[in-house]
């Protein structure tokens, strides 16, 4: 018996709204379909109405986990357009925050993977230790999530000696913890049984479907913008690209742990080599007409911003490609012929960060399989009809 189950837009395994339609046969998934748009905020249009400086904060809010990635990618591009050369110390601090963010993102992911597999103790412990890096980030930038440390031409905050010592101390503590979690993740039989051999994506498929980031690297593709196209400080750093060729969720765990260990290495190098000097240069408000493609290796894969300027203080066009979008075609492929129980793990394994408009609700009539689309206003009316005696709330008119 084949039937369709809707995973999302509201589902406990998804922390953000996206709709996955699974055609299942018993416990086995036969086909999967992805529908986006539940979270589309029209950001690219909005960016055309804001100045370059304001857009830093806008791009930072594309994502909550890799906020620094998008802002850095944008700032890199704008600096190219304005022909600025940011000072060394500023660059070092900027990419120090980048690597700390990668650490925080990957630790978060490890916890989420544990939670999706029902391994809540693993989730609690990884997230406890993630607080170390969150505190470091808060100390450096003044905020836990949106660091807002980038500005055009450098960074906004400097590091002092005490902070440097604290970073080194925190990284040393995190390294031992990460090694321990790897030991648990690779040895706990019930966890390994859930992730090994699940969500297979061969190297050929990954290449054809343009997968990025840890998803691609776990399929044996050595693709890392930090190595392929070394931007800013990365050609001065000694690190390796972590890959695995098991092509499954276990491989993605291994890749992320390897990346964590490499990130610790980079952080230590940055802090030890931190040059003296200014942290920022003065930037003009306007950029010359031109275009630039800015690439950046975010924790989830490659970020790409295409910025076109027209000589004014606002960009003509800002195209943002977040890594998760690139991984969706691969996800559909991974889900096929898997078990229902593997949906959350496979989907979480690409570390989805769903940044995409919420105006309608789609109701699927299970019996007939037909879909009806209901506007939000209709839904509200239906709800009011169901509860005629409900106490009316104060009239709220939100700009919809």
């Amino acid at each position, binding site marked *: 018996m084949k039937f369709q189950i809707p995973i999302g837009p509201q589902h406990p395994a998804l922390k953000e709204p996206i709709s996955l339609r699974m055609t299942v046969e018993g416990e086995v998934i036969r086909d999967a379909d992805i*529908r*986006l*748009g539940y979270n*589309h905020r*029209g950001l*690219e*249009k909005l960016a055309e109405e804001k100045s370059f400086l304001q857009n830093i904060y806008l791009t930072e809010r594309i994502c909550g986990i890799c906020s620094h990635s998008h802002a850095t990618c944008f700032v890199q591009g704008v600096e*190219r357009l304005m022909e600025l050369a940011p000072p060394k110390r500023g660059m070092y601090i900027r990419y120090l925050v980048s690597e700390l963010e990668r650490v925080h993102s990957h630790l978060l992911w490890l916890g989420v993977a544990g939670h999706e597999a029902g391994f809540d103790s693993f989730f609690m412990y990884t997230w406890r230790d993630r607080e170390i890096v969150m505190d470091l980030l808060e100390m450096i930038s003044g905020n836990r999530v949106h660091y807002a440390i980038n500005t055009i031409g450098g960074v906004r905050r400097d590091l002092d000696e005490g902070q440097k010592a604290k970073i080194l101390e925190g990284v040393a503590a995190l390294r031992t913890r990460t090694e321990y979690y790897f030991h648990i993740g690779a040895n706990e039989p019930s966890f390994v049984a859930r992730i090994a051999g699940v969500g297979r994506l061969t190297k050929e498929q990954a*290449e*054809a*479907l*343009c*997968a*990025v980031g840890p998803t691609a690297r776990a399929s044996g593709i050595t*693709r890392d913008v930090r190595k*392929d*196209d070394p931007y800013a400080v990365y050609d001065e750093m000694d690190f390796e690209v972590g890959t695995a060729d098991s092509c499954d969720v276990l491989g993605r765990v291994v890749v992320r742990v390897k990346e964590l260990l490499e990130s610790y290495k980079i952080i230590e190098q940055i802090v030890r080599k931190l040059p003296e000097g200014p942290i920022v240069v003065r930037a003009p408000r306007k950029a010359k007409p*031109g*275009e*630039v*493609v800015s*690439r950046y290796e975010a924790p989830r894969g*490659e970020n*790409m911003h*295409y910025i*076109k300027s027209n000589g004014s203080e606002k960009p*003509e*066009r800002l*195209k943002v*490609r977040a890594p998760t*979008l*690139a991984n*969706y*075609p*691969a996800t559909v492929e991974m889900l096929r012929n898997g078990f229902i129980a593997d949906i959350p793990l496979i989907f979480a394994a690409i570390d989805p960060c769903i940044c*995409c*408009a919420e*105006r*309608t609700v*789609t109701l699927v009539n299970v019996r007939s399989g037909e879909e009806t*689309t209901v*506007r939000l206003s209709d839904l509200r009316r239906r709800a009011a009809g169901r509860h005629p005696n409900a106490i009316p709330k*104060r*009239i*709220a*008119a*939100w*700009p919809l």
Partner: protein
Amino acid sequence: MSDVEISQRLQKDLGTKALEVTNPDRRRIFLKVAPDDLVAAVTLLRDKYDCRYLATISGVDKGDMFEILYHFASPAANINVRTEVTKDSPHIESICTVIPGAIFYERELQDMFGLVVDHIPDPRPLVLPDDWPAGNFPLRKDWKYQRPEERIPGGKS
């Protein structure tokens, strides 16, 4: 392979099909082709230049033209294929036969710019809602979103 070598090889391989090859920045190569030569150029890039990875497709509204950029990345350089179609007949050929991973970007182009991607395997809307009024394409320059006045419930002032 350095940027200059790649540019020269592109000029030679594509001949007259390459309308313009520029190299504005380190590892950034912009190649312009006519819309009819797009699939041929993409196939060549994939087979000979190790550009199996399509990063994204961006569209730009340039008044009476649409500019479409295909951002490819190889380990050596970032090659961006640029092509232009007129607003009157915004037709572009799908490259999904060459690069299957392009499907989401092409669907996004259709949604946001109202381009028609011919022979696209899956033409459903991707990001816009199902009841989005037809003929509205948000990223066109003539499409303006009028922000309604903000009204805060509670009413003081």
